[in-house]
């Protein structure tokens, strides 16, 4: 028993080491911007670069648009799928694998070929970029929403709400979406994380996004890319922490803490 516990700890430590040694190394390297001393000069350089904020801002805007478009498209579709054609779910699951199977470079060339000339010329418009991002984030949004819907008794809740007079809009806004909260939050943050770091689509469609900026930085500088990695790592963890905090406050409310239950 004791030996088993010891082994578990050993594996845990190995796991932690595997993930954190490269991170620590990157962090230490990012602090060596000034010779001989540890300093945050690389970070200062990153933040001082106007391109950093510009590209990050652009990617963030694209990410927000992607989240909005993706949720608007995928959430109602998935709900409809669960309620009306549950048998088609395995087929849709295969579709959700396509963005993993088809490399983004193929997707980008396909989009360019199709939308470069009339009748639909979209290459100059960020709409095409967002549309591409929606495709890339489709598996993540679909799977989050699907898991959320499986966790609730969608059919039962739908019928209960309908028998109480609720139409589709009231059903969605008052019953389904509030109960999908955690799933929607995780879909949102996954999409944000993916879109902000995305390189291929932004590069090939020639947009000043954060992904290409990071790649460019990596080619030209030594310490700043390491600082950027740490910054984006921090942003991602910040987002995950936010999901945790928001869902926990939701759970606390649901379990009656501070809700006046007695």
């Amino acid at each position, binding site marked *: 028993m004791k030996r088993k516990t010891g082994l578990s700890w050993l594996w845990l430590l190995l796991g932690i080491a595997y993930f954190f040694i490269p991170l620590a190394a990157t962090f230490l390297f990012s602090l060596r911007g000034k010779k001989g001393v540890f300093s945050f000069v690389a970070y200062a350089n990153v933040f001082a670069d106007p391109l950093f904020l510009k590209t990050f801002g652009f990617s963030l805007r694209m990410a927000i648009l992607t989240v909005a478009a993706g949720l608007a498209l995928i959430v109602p579709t998935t709900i409809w799928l669960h309620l009306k054609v549950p048998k088609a779910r395995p087929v849709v699951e295969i579709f959700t694998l396509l963005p993993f199977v088809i490399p983004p470079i193929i997707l980008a060339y396909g989009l360019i070929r199709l939308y470069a000339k009339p009748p639909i010329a979209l290459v100059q418009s960020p709409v095409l970029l967002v549309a591409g991002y929606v495709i890339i984030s489709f598996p993540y949004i679909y799977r989050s929403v699907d898991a959320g819907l499986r966790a609730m*008794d969608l059919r039962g809740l739908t*019928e209960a709400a309908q028998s*109480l*007079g*609720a*139409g589709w809009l*009231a059903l969605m806004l008052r019953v389904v979406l509030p109960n999908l909260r955690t799933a929607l939050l995780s879909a949102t943050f996954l999409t944000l994380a993916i879109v902000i770091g995305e390189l291929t689509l932004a590069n090939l469609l020639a947009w000043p996004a954060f992904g290409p900026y990071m790649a460019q930085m990596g080619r030209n500088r030594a310490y700043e890319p390491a600082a950027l990695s740490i910054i984006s790592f921090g942003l991602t963890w910040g987002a995950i922490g936010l999901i945790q905090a928001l869902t926990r406050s939701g759970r606390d409310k*649901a*379990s009656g803490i501070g809700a006046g*239950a007695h």
Partner: protein
Amino acid sequence: MAFIELRDIEKSFGKNQVVKRLSLDVGKGEFVSFLGGSGCGKTTTLRMIAGFETPSAGSVKVDGRDMSGIAPNKRNLGMVFQNYALFPNMTVRRNIGFGLRIAGAKGAEVESRVDEMLGLIHMEEFAHRYPHQLSGGQQQRVALARAIAVRPSALLLDEPLSALDAKIRVKLRDDIRAIQQRLGITTIYVTHDQEEALSISDRVAVMREGRIEQIGSPFEVYNRPATPYVASFIGTLNLLSGAVADPSKGTLLVAGRELRSSGPIEAPAGAEVKLSLRPESLSIGAGQAGHNRIEGRIESVKFLGSVVRVVVETGGQRVFMDTFNDPSAPPPPVGSSVELSFPPEALKAGAAEAASEPERAAAAEEG
């Protein structure tokens, strides 16, 4: 005039016809149960009334209004589900007030109606709890309050007690009946539990293979089953075989003894017929003059609490006898000989259909 009117309704899923030309009138304020085993079409029929399924043929009318083409949310029918279906993101208070708010009722009006409903189900102190903080029985009471808060024209209950413990089931079914009678609300109740159906309904519709086999008061359905299926489905039934002695007098030979049945028999003398006999109509001893008598050997005695079930072997056939527990008179020992008697009216000839134990077992298991 009937308040709920089903006319020749049918429902098929692909090739499988689940409900077959079913017609039924339910009076205003009446409590009708659909009773039957799994797959008999009882839930599908209820869902057609609620609007969650569309009949393949026939019509559903509520209060004279044809329901075809009317969406479930426009029918004003309260529904209670087997798995409660409370909204997990809302407190008890908000669950109950949901339908009122949808209907556009204002704050104070909603609050006072919700208070009234909380009083009706005796759950005032649970108003601020969330569904997952309640027991199954409490959740179902909230679901009931939520369904009737909007003053529906009728209440539909789909096996509301199936997921609950036996004790809570009995308590809650009495509560449901009391509330229904107090409000005078027309109610259709789906169940596979015969005791539940018999104990709370004005009328019970026994269903089988998409049809109503018999509809009548619990007393009628139990004591005067219209078909052998109803007889075997409701209550425990002894099925014996005997040879017709005199068809016009209704006498038969069972295990060498001549017995009188409830009336003339539609079979020629000498023909083998099935006989049915309720266990509670038998008693130990010679009984009154004119009663049928059979002799046998006690095979087993089961003590069921208020009732004692004695199994007697007679002429190669087994007969169940139910008698009330009497603390001063313990049941006769196993293996002893015994004489049983029963009135001729209790013996019904012609129950040619086999008792469907597997079917009833399936009904009992149906969740």
